[in-house]
């Protein structure tokens, strides 16, 4: 049973991590907690579902297009909501509250368009079979989630570390003003960041939709709560932190079900999280907060 639970934990943790990647990226670069990330994640699912079921597109094509569409939506949100607030030097809470509004709007409109009930990808979108090794079972979707989550994380990490854009982004994270004075196209990179973050959120949406059969306008909200916990735990703005934080939360949840009680799943997981934060208040990789402080 333990081996199976470890697999369950790894899949769930990868989902949380993938969701948290984009979320933490926006915080790291823009210094904004973008609470519309859950709604964009939800739209990612619907977009891919629409492309697969109405246009008979292959899943991978649909996933790419839906990442692209979510990315563009992320830029639109940045342009219409976050940028005006940046230009007015609005206080820290303003973008957070504004993005709550965006999230509610997107959720409501989606409900109007797609209906309130859950949808799922048509059967056969991805191989349904599960691979068994003795008593151990693993589905194709589970493997895809883990692999894709790790690939996206590694790509993002390499971009941040090794490319010109990555260096510029890190400079902005350090100080947007200084970066601007150094001739970095700050606004452009803000848009790029919003694009990448929303695209990652969309990818997470597609994978979650595939894996759990429950695409609904309300799927973003519970994920958002977990995402906030994950990026705080990992250290706000830290990519490795988001990954490890996500895995940690997945493991904590699954293990509390396995060895304590499913009644206390969230209580145990978030209790652990709280204890970790008591020891390391800025999260496991909490550079950004220290730096900004």
């Amino acid at each position, binding site marked *: 049973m333990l081996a199976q*639970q470890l697999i369950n934990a790894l899949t769930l943790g990868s989902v949380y991590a993938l969701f948290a990647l984009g979320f933490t990226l926006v915080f790291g670069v823009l210094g904004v907690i973008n609470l519309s990330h859950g709604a964009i994640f939800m739209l990612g699912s619907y977009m891919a579902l629409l492309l697969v079921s109405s246009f008979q597109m292959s899943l991978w094509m649909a996933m790419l297009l839906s990442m692209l569409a979510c990315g563009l939506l992320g830029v639109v949100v940045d342009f219409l909501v976050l940028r005006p607030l940046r230009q007015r030097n609005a206080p820290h809470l303003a973008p957070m509250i504004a993005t709550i509004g965006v999230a509610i709007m997107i959720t409501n409109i989606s409900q109007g368009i797609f209906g309130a009930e859950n949808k799922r990808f048509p059967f056969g979108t991805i191989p349904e079979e599960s691979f068994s090794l003795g008593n151990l079972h693993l589905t194709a979707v589970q493997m895809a989630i883990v692999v894709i989550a790790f690939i996206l994380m590694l790509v993002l990490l390499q971009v941040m570390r090794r490319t010109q854009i990555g260096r510029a982004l890190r400079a902005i994270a350090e100080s947007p003003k200084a970066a601007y004075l150094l001739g970095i196209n700050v606004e452009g990179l803000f848009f790029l960041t919003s694009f990448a973050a929303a695209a990652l959120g969309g990818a997470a949406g597609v994978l*979650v939709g595939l894996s759990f059969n429950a695409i609904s306008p309300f799927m973003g909200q519970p994920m958002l709560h977990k995402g906030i916990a994950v990026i705080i735990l990992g250290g706000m703005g830290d990519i490795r932190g988001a990954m490890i934080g996500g895995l940690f939360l997945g493991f904590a949840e699954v293990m509390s079900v396995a060895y304590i009680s499913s009644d206390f799943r969230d209580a145990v997981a978030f209790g652990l999280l709280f204890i970790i934060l008591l020891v390391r208040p800025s999260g496991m990789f909490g550079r950004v907060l220290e730096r900004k402080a």
Partner: protein
Amino acid sequence: MSYRLKLLAAATFLAYSTMSQAADIKIGVAEALTGPAAKYGVAIKNGFTLAADQINAKGGVNGNKIQLIAEDEQGKKEEAINVFKKLLFQEKVLMIFGPTLSNSAFAADPIANATKTVVFGTSNTADGITNMGPFTFRNSVMEADVLPVTTRAAVKQFNIKKVAILYGNDDAFTKSGYDVFKSALAEQKIPVTDTETYAKGDVDFKAQLTKIKASNPDAIVCSCLAEEAANIILQTRSLGMKQPFVGGNGFNSPKLFEIAKDAADNTLMGSPWSAENPSAANKSFMADYKAKFGSDPDQFAAQAFDAMHIVAEALKKVSLSGNLEKDRLALRDALPAVKIEGATGKFAFRRAAPKDGKEAGYDAQQDAIVNIAKGGKFVLLK
């Protein structure tokens, strides 16, 4: 008075009297039309609309047309209270159907009782709803009446020795279903190997299911709503588990098979309504619903449809005076005696036992139909 004037007076009088005869009967419909519970609320509203349109097309009740005033309570307690107040005090409705969720009914039903107005739930199955007061009615059959019949049938069908239970612990409906399952299993001396829970919005049940698998039950008893149930079934199969499922009312939706397809085969479900019930009343209900709304009805629509006919039946015996207070009381006095045979079969009311010395309302007296899933749909269990 000249001849002309007399004629005019007579005409006015005639016009007036026919007008007052053919008054509209305003009936409030407070359901969750948006939000996560909208999938039930909308089906329920459709059920009322279909029945009311049919009744009106046949000339209404004693010549009076039924006018439904639908308000969205969003599946929230606070909103249900607001909507009830609006319907009672502004719209001055004769009675209210709703709200959708038992949670909201506990909050809003006392308001209707305080104003001595009938409140009629068609989807509230939790224990104690009708203890809100003597003006509370429901035709939704309580889980307490259905689930023991279902577990008994399951034990016989699959030769079950022990079961595991899974339920949603933050929802009044699934929680009360669990309580009933638990006591029914205890009464029938079926040991429970493991009890697991999940919360609203959860989509990954693998951790719980892995634990259930390790406890090796003969069947999984599940107090869940259809969509969660379908995903739970699918995830069970992907873990290599083959146990049959035993479910309650929440399973009774085409959604279950849209999602789980034939992975749901061998699931047992008890309900007052079945798409497979071959009675003429049910056949014509299903055909009319499909023609009007373009989709298949579910149990929620069926119960709402029957409820509208139950009220119409009561209204036939009431001569409306135009005095709202009197008419509301008259409707309440006429309702308990109604007996009909609707889409959900034979129906009658049963007075609920009073609690804490408080007068109670009326529950449904109806038989449960046990169904088994075969080839992607529920058929009657023989």
